[in-house]
């Protein structure tokens, strides 16, 4: 074999080895993680405090609303952060306030379902909460998604002391 052919052969081998090693090391998939489908169920973390329960509730509500609107949970979270961001979001995706309100309410209802399924809300608390949320105005619904602790504090405050008695009574 001539030196020229050896050089070309060696170069091909070196290039292939480098590309092969980098591919095996995950070079083809080194990119930002993809957002999870908001319509898929997401695991509930065990809430250690009311604040964490509220956060979990908000995340679940975001998932539900994002699923309805066909956007990611992350996009919706940023859109609901400020009125300006909400306006930009509405323009970009062609979503008016009515459609957004329906989606946010649906999201909050899903959050109640998820909380109930995870054992974080009893059926007794979940029922009236659903009725309240079905009629809630958009601004309040958004405020709830952003900070559900006020709602949950009120619910627990209302039912808290009597909860055990009522649950025993209704079986």
């Amino acid at each position, binding site marked *: 074999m*001539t*030196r*020229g*052919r050896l*050089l*070309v052969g*060696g*170069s*091909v081998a*070196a*290039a*292939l080895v*480098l*590309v092969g090693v*980098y*591919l095996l*090391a*995950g*070079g*083809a998939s*080194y*990119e*930002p*993680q*993809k*957002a*999870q489908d908001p319509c898929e169920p997401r695991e509930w*973390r065990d809430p250690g405090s009311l*604040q*964490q329960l*509220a*956060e979990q509730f908000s*995340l679940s509500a*975001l998932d539900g609303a994002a699923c309805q609107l066909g956007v*990611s*949970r*992350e*996009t919706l*979270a*940023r859109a609901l*952060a400020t009125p300006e961001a909400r306006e930009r979001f509405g323009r970009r995706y062609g979503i008016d306030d009515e459609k957004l309100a329906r989606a946010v309410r649906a999201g909050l209802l899903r959050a109640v379902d998820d909380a109930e399924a995870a054992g974080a809300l009893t059926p007794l608390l979940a029922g009236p909460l659903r009725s309240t949320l079905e009629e809630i105005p958009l601004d309040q619904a958004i405020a709830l998604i952003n900070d559900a602790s006020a709602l949950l504090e009120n619910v627990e405050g209302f039912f808290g002391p009597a909860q055990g008695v009522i649950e025993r009574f209704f079986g």
Partner: protein
Amino acid sequence: MLADSSIVVLALPEIYRELDTSVAGVTWVLVSFNLVMALAAVPAALLARRVGPGRAAAVGLAVFAGAGLACGAAEQLSTLIAARCVQALGGAAAVTAALELLPATVGSERRATVVWAGAGATGAALGPAVGGILTELVSWQSIFLVQVPVALAAAVPILAVARHEMATRVIEQEVRPAGRPHLWANLALAMVSAAIAAALFLLVLLLIEGWRLSPIGAALVVTAMPLAAILGSRLGPHVPDARARAAAGAILVSGGLAGLALLPKAEVALTLPPQLLIGVGLSLVLSALTETALSGRAPQAIHGGWTISARHAGVVIGLLALTPIFTADIEDQRAEAIEAGTAVILDSPVEPLLKLGLARRIAERLEGETGRVPTIGPAFRPLPDDPEDRADVEQLRDELQEQLNRGATHAFSPSFGLGALIGLLALIPIGLARRLDL
């Protein structure tokens, strides 16, 4: 002058920030110089033969120095670009005239070709380090200002040659018609230069703008490429077949660029193996193609002009073709990184109220750096006093940084990949260079 692009590229991120322009805008600091060099190289070589290489080189160096002064004083991008155009005119005259002057100094045209190509390689080797050190320790303006005394110092011995030319008036007798340029070798030179420009330009931007290295840090990293080129230049003489050297070089450059397109992590060390391949490859392919383009062709200055023209045209094509792709990709990846970063924040175990404040500060940084990969570190300062909260916040910061690193690295992948493809396509004219010796 042959090293100009490798010096200036290190200052681009600084110019980009200081003159408040865009990536596409700052690219023209390189594009304008290379475009004018590509257009002016052959006419400058013809002029050098007509007025005498000594005079052409002296005037060229003076113009280059004067325009360098204007570049250093520029406060607007448009002024800088205009000065760069004038600088390239002077550069074209000086570089092509140098090839005409060299045979008399070194003894033969063949030796002159080797010395001339070697000067380009040495310049490229020193370029990134010089550019990085000057940019960081002094300012981006200094990379242009430092060229002024260097060019003037080079002009001093040439003035004697120019005076001798004027006294003897031997120039007109030496003018002879130039043969046709070597089409395939020059075409391959242009394609390989496009790929190499992509490698250097994009790697520097990735290191400084994507991974936030300092200019000196980036300069040290990219110096690996020219150091490998020195290794490659020792390998070349052992292989007499120029076409084999050119093919091997093009394959190595493409392999290295493919490696940069497939970086498995945002780590500086991982850029070294691809740089090693690119460095060895560029040394093999550039010298082999320049030799082929000049071999048996006279006058050397004219054909040297064609090789300069081809190389600089390649750099222009590479930059113009890849910049829009890369700028669009960095915007897409920025959006994806923000999406991934939001997910990291939402899912983080950081205490909700603390998280809310952090999210607001991070969002401000993201909004404030449109078109760039944002720096998020300051959003996390000061860290909370509580050890548990501090650990959670630090974990969140690291995860968020990882998503941004992934976004930044991935944004460069398609451009590096396209550079690799251009390098591979150069194998076509390299293959044709021997069969059709045009």
